[in-house]
């Protein structure tokens, strides 16, 4: 495969809070997956090359992977997260980068 045909990815870090507190690892996983699936649909998710890379339940900080050309859609999807099971929620995008290390540093 030519380098130009390689899958180009971006990492977007975020901070998640539901009801003012960071949810547990399992709850966060469910929240992120269900919200992205609801926003993009099954077909959209497959084209997005979405993956939850990491999540820290102490701080609520996490990171997702997406396709390079669809960073704006990913950030907008995060911005659209407003509630979860009756409680107010917020998924705030923090930084974007081409590698996990660089995204974590920002």
């Amino acid at each position, binding site marked *: 495969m030519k380098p130009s045909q390689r899958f180009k990815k971006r990492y977007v870090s975020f901070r998640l809070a539901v009801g003012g507190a960071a949810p547990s690892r399992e709850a966060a996983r469910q929240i992120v997956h269900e919200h992205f699936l609801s926003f993009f649909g099954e077909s959209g998710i497959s084209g997005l090359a979405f993956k939850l890379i990491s999540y820290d339940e102490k701080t609520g900080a996490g990171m997702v992977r997406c396709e390079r050309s669809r960073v*704006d*859609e990913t*950030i*907008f999807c995060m*911005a659209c997260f407003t509630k979860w099971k009756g409680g107010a929620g917020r998924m*705030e995008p923090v930084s974007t980068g081409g590698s996990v290390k660089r995204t974590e540093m920002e």
Partner: protein
Amino acid sequence: MIDIVLASGLDAPKGLSLIDGNKERRLKTSSPASVKADARMRGVLLYSPPYEIEEGACVELARNGGALVFSLSDVLREGGFRRSIIISKMRLALAACRRAGCSSVAFTLAKRQEEVRTGRELAAFMAVLGMTDAERKHAKEIAETLAKKEGAG
């Protein structure tokens, strides 16, 4: 970056300045019945919540140096299928604006602290609607002229 909100005393996120839209004379909330008449006002920022704007109104807006306002809060307040419908209406309104050659801007128009979003999220909203880089830059310039005017006044 500048954002207009519809409440006073909201905390601004880092890197974003908030302007109270209730005190901003250029911002005009318009019903579908009065949208064409309101578009004739000079330099108006026309906010028409159903986003069912005709091309004739966009032509009037372009002629009088106005801009159509898109609100991120309108998207946040809806959910599921209704959210997709409002985004679709916004995209159609943006296409009408582009054909008529009138400007478009995006603000959060937040009424509550939970509706306030960062500048990056606002930029992503504009990109998702289909604004080009040049259109986004122009939208930022329009917002900055409002901030300068407020600072002067």
